[in-house]
């Protein structure tokens, strides 16, 4: 949100361990949580304000206790926009709309429920890595491939980041081009699949024939 400079204040509240593990056990004291908040700010070079919720997560629970939400709060202290799964380009649009109406009122319909997981896919691995191996085992047994995907996404960061970590919304022309490319890939895959000759029933695999000879 560097584009907006001092026209917005970014504040982050550190909540419970999302993916606990041997080195990041569930918090049993506020001091543990405070220590992690300091480590987080230092390790990730966070320039914005970082706050620490209490052990019970009072503020987090009051605000819905979701995993990765961001609220846009207007100059009257009211919720202008609720981005349930934090997505920088959507917040960019919401903030632009709010500033255009003098910093007050609800914008863009007020709430975005879409599960924006692109940023997590590309940048979520460092957090998940802190809880290894338990964090990955727990994730994989909850949602298959949900630990593998961020590992892969993190290593493909140079390729994915322009799409998944962008701050501004994609221009319409880029969206059309990406949509066309996705449709093209699907059609190409279908064409290859349909063009492959079907093996007659009862036929023996060529490899087995070679081995038998």
């Amino acid at each position: 949100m560097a584009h907006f400079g001092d026209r917005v204040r970014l504040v982050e509240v550190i909540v419970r361990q999302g993916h606990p593990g041997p080195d990041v056990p569930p918090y049993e004291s506020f001091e543990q949580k405070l220590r992690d908040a300091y480590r987080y700010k230092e390790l990730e070079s966070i320039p914005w304000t970082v706050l620490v919720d209490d052990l019970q997560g009072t503020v987090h629970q009051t605000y819905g206790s979701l995993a990765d939400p961001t609220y846009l709060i207007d100059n009257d202290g009211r919720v202008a926009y609720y981005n349930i799964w934090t997505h920088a380009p959507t917040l960019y649009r919401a903030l632009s709309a709010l500033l255009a109406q003098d910093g007050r009122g609800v914008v863009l319909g007020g709430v975005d429920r879409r599960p924006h997981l692109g940023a997590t896919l590309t940048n979520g691995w460092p957090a998940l890595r802190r809880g290894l191996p338990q964090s990955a085992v727990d994730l994989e047994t909850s949602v298959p491939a949900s630990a593998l995907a961020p590992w892969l996404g993190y290593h493909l960061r140079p390729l994915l980041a322009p799409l998944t970590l962008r701050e501004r919304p994609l221009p319409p022309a880029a969206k059309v081009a990406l949509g066309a490319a996705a449709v093209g890939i699907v059609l190409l895959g279908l064409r290859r699949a349909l063009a492959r000759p079907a093996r007659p029933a009862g036929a023996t695999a060529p490899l087995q024939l070679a081995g038998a000879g």
Partner: protein
Amino acid sequence: MQLPDATQRFTELDKTETAERYNYGHFRPRLVAGEVVKTVGATGIAPGERAPDFELPMVGGGTWRLAHHLTPPILLRFGSFS
């Protein structure tokens, strides 16, 4: 529909999770299901509603209170170390 105000929300907190349950030891499928339900229901503070005030310790020292920093607009994010 009348929405509960901030004071009511805070007084109802004893109906929410305890510290022990809130700080779970393992990420489980029930948490995924809970996130889906809360996403669909947009659990939290509704647009247009006053954001409940709070004061929390700040990394670097001191405390930060929402009501003292309403201008410029605030992006309030909730995140985890892991």
